């Protein structure tokens, strides 16, 4: 089943000069698969991810998420899809410094629910346990390391049990050992949560942990193939 699809997507930034950053992109992602979008800096891969995450809109073309056509949604519906269907992990963790680690994980739930039940609290604690930082739940983001911050961001992305996780350079800001740990964590999460994983990265090591590698150059897809080095997950 296809969970995310882009058809004929173009993106043109207009200003003093018009710049086209994406050219006629056609891509679809099967549910419960793990894919990497790789490319050099400036290749358009982050713009692609922003469009897939409905953070940005294409100049032309269509995006379909979980059978919903994005162009037909209003702002409120888009916000709801971002909250319930998509989990984001960014290069910079973007945790809210005013909230503790546990509260940061709970925020996606609280955005659309007025209160949290004991069950929800247990889920957040369980997620922190899975990412290995259960003991840090009362700390503020400024009181933990970069790797721990990124783990918190991953737990937060999983909070609403989204069907898609979009990760933009999730290890771009981490050292090589922490990068390995985060990649291993992604693998474990994928197995446990059966989520569609899409990782945008320029790091081939990170991409090698996925089932499919899509390469983007100058706004165009130049290759799209299964990663034979890893054993693809079967449903």
């Amino acid at each position, binding site marked *: 089943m296809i969970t995310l699809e882009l058809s004929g997507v173009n993106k043109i930034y207009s200003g003093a000069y018009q710049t086209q950053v994406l050219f006629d992109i056609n891509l679809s992602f099967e549910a419960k698969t793990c894919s990497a979008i790789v490319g050099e800096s400036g290749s358009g891969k*982050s713009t692609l991810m*922003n469009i897939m*995450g409905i*953070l*940005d809109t294409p100049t032309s073309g269509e995006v379909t998420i979980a059978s919903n056509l994005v162009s037909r949604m209003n*702002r*409120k519906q888009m*916000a*709801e*899809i*971002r*909250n*319930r269907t998509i989990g*984001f992990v*960014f*290069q*910079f963790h*973007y945790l*809210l*410094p*005013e*909230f503790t680690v546990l509260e940061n994980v709970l*925020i*996606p739930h*609280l*955005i*659309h629910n*007025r209160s949290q039940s004991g069950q929800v609290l247990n889920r957040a604690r369980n997620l922190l346990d899975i990412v290995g930082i259960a003991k840090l739940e009362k700390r503020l983001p400024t009181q933990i390391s970069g790797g721990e911050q990124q783990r918190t961001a991953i737990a*937060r992305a999983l909070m609403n049990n989204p069907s898609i996780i979009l990760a*933009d350079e999730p290890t771009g800001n981490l050292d090589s050992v922490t990068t390995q740990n985060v990649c291993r964590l992604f693998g474990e999460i994928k197995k446990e949560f059966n989520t569609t994983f899409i990782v945008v990265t320029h790091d081939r090591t990170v991409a090698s942990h996925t089932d499919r590698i899509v390469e983007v150059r100058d706004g165009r897809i130049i290759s799209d193939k299964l990663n034979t080095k890893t054993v693809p997950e079967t449903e």
Partner: protein
Amino acid sequence: MLPLKIATRFLKSGKGQTALIVFGIAIAVSVQIFVGLLIIGLQLSLVNSTIGNQPQITIRPAGDNNTIKNWEIIVNQVRNVDGLDKISVTAAGNASVPDDNGILPILVQGFDFQSADRIYGISESIYQGKQIQSLKQVLIGRSLEEELEVEIGDKLPILTPDGGVNLFEIAGFYDLGIESINRSWVITNLVAAQRLFGYRDRVTEIIMTVDQDRLFDADRIAARIQQAVNSEDIEVTNWKDQNEELLSGLEGQSISSGVIQGVVLASVVVAISSVLSITVLQKSRQLGILKAMGITDRDASLIFVFQGLLIGLIGATVGIAMGLGLLYAFNTFTSSAEGTALIEIYIDYNFIIRSWVIAISSSTLAGLIPARRSLKLNPVDVIREG
């Protein structure tokens, strides 16, 4: 509720900035409370000293009549009019008393002493002698006493316009605090005055006061009295008709107080809006990620509205406490050596509550400006900038 929780955390995270803006609002509200209550106190003491110990509504004979007949019926008709406090009657007439240089014009006021005393506070104002005990006794004011150089127990001849001369005994001297009254009023018993001027059982005025908090409604109450009596033989006047200068003075004070309060309020709104607008910039990262996580435009805006509300709530409450403190301090430091206050403090709870609600509402409204700015914030810009 997440927006409220985020608003609280945003305010707590910038403690110095929050404290500064709360202090700013508190100062503004305290000025508003101080100036407002001072002017209200000033106006009340001015009104009290001018019309406090006087009738505020008077029924007089109209047309060619000099007296009011059947006044007992009228008194019964108006007794139940809403807002009316005390009622009395008087039979007054012009007369004169002889002095060394000729004669002095006076006004004989024949009171139903018990009820008139509650309006004028006559017995309290007697500084020498005692109240009238018989129909042949009078009270005279301080100025007239000095003019005539008389003593308690002296006989005072009163000359009526018809040429009659009646001898009265001076029972006491009063001081009602108003020079013109102290000079001209010779106070006697109602029946004595009726006999003196040949009014039979009629009176010349029905005098009334209104409830203390309805002073400025005197014109409306007077209109209701006119309606209740519904007679062309009488006319109803009230203190507002007779004190236009005082009223315009009071109005001027109210306007200047309003202008001061308006300017203070406007500065509060501008200050809060500008500080919260800076917050939008300071917290753009957090807002961007919240939007990426699916917070709705409405909830994102509510964060700033709640910040305005919280700041206003604390600032206005602290401001009222500071304003009252300032007022009491002012009252203490400006008191005379005997402890008499320069201006009597009047705590107008309605004014305080109104100021509190207005400050909080303005502060909340001020939050709408940054809230609108937050709508324009695009999460992609924040994420791209890192």
